[in-house]
């Protein structure tokens, strides 16, 4: 899982792997990309893998007898195996391809939720969820008359685990939470949270959109029931994501969408569902994107997830230290040692949009808004924050340009 840990991490070499990083955003102004929590940039190998697939192997999968169809099927299923291994899932057939994390969570809500939940059942979420792990449960709660409870976020940006233990006494059927907050950067103590949830018989689901790209994730060790993530935040293409599920759960769940590929036998008024994972992959899937997803995993493994984590830690520590010198600026979330490479902040009396706009003038890409976590912003009484997020290709110089940009923001608004 960790790759070649004996070679040095060379960030300039890594940058050379990402074509977009070489472009000028405006004449003479380089790109400083600090928005990887929204989507990561793509290395040449991923772009090339997808292009080669279309140029040499393109065919529909699982049906054709011809050579191209066999090659395409093999490419698609090989990608599945790589990705399953990457998160240490027990078997590749427990890894379902979806469009993204959002669709993975919706799949569980509609397939597992509709079968196993009924009026009055409780679902336990947290106040730091991305809308993708909130709205699907609001929808299914409305349909089935379920009760939603929330683990509160403390003022430091951590989950209040004392309240969590109290809420577990209400016997939730499901505990669904993010591995890492896309706003606060908080990395939740999943192992403990999952163990506690299991002790009251709850099923667990984790939104891994911000974790899988940035540090080693070991599904078998976490003993989680469902785990969702997206390719596009981990150097892969948009349009494809994955859902890991516990085998017995997946096998007993009804299909999510109906159509081709998800069936074993069809009659006019009935069908027999296919085996997992195909049962959940109706219609022609995103084949080239699966190939790109596999290439992204190859790329990350070659660099080494441990080293990516270490590099991001260094950048995050440096950023937080430098931000201390910017007057009237407050960073959300826990201290550096408990935080991933996501730094959301606000500057007194200056709106996040204006901060992002002025930074963009210097080619610095950050995100401004509520980052699809509006209830969390409401809790902290902030309409919006600005967020800088890092990845393996960011440098100390990127952070220095970002800090200089913030000084400029203050000058314009002084």
């Amino acid at each position: 899982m960790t790759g070649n840990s004996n070679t040095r991490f060379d960030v300039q070499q890594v940058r050379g792997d990402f074509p977009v990083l070489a472009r000028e955003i405006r004449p003479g102004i380089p790109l400083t990309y600090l928005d990887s929590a929204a989507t990561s940039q793509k290395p040449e190998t991923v772009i090339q893998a997808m292009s080669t697939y279309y140029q040499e192997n393109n065919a529909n999968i699982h049906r054709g007898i011809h050579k191209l169809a066999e090659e395409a099927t093999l490419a698609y299923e090989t990608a599945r195996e790589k990705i399953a291994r990457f998160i240490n899932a027990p078997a590749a057939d427990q890894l379902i391809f979806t469009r993204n994390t959002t669709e993975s969570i919706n799949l569980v809500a509609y397939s597992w939720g509709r079968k196993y939940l009924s009026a009055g059942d409780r679902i336990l979420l947290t106040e730091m969820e991305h809308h993708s792990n909130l709205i699907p449960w609001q929808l299914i709660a409305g349909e089935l008359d379920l009760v939603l409870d929330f683990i509160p976020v403390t003022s430091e940006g951590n989950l209040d685990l004392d309240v969590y233990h109290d809420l577990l006494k209400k016997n939730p059927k499901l505990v669904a939470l993010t591995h890492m907050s896309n706003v606060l950067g908080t990395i939740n103590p999943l192992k403990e949270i999952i163990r506690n949830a299991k002790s009251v018989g709850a099923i667990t689901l984790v939104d891994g959109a911000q974790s899988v790209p940035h540090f080693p994730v070991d599904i078998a060790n976490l003993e989680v029931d469902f785990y969702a993530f997206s390719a596009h935040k981990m150097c892969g293409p948009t349009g494809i994501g994955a859902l890991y599920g516990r085998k017995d759960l997946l096998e007993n769940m009804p299909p999510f969408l109906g159509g081709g590929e998800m069936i074993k036998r069809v009659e006019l008024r009935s069908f027999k569902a296919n085996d997992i994972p195909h049962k959940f992959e109706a219609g022609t899937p995103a084949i080239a994107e699966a190939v790109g997803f596999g290439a992204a995993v190859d790329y990350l493994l070659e660099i080494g997830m441990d080293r990516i984590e270490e590099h991001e830690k260094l950048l995050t520590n440096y950023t937080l230290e430098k931000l201390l010198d910017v007057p009237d600026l407050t960073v959300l979330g826990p201290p550096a040692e408990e935080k991933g490479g996501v730094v959301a902040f606000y500057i007194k009396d200056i709106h996040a949009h204006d901060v992002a706009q002025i930074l963009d003038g210097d080619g610095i890409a950050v995100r401004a808004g509520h980052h699809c976590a509006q209830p969390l912003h409401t809790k902290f009484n902030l309409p919006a924050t600005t967020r800088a997020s890092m990845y393996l290709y960011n440098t100390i110089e990127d952070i220095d340009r970002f800090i200089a940009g913030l000084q400029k923001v203050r000058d314009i608004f002084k």
Partner: protein
Amino acid sequence: MEDFYRELIIERYKSPHFRGELEPNDISFEDDNPACGDHIRIDVRLDENHVVTEAVFSGEGCAISLASADLLLESIIGKTIEELKETTKEDILDMLGIELGPVRLKCALLPLKVLKAGVYGVGETISSD
């Protein structure tokens, strides 16, 4: 970039001339920009001829959206409801004096959207009188 944050925009953002709430009022409407969670409310008072006598805004937003609100309200005092309806996107951009991309355009136009939604509500009441 400095052009983007013209002195006028920063000045109106920091010291708006038309910030507040009016109770009672003849028109009051509020709306959000879902992209950023910004929220603007506009209150308007009319005389017996449906001419705007007072107009103020409240809420949260960036410099572009709040300066846009302030300049918009300044421009509507003394206008009739019918004249208000003719305010366009170009009028707003002229007042701000900047060019905007699609995302920031939503910020700049939120106040106009709120005002028009309020005005058309009144328009319907008036026509049903």
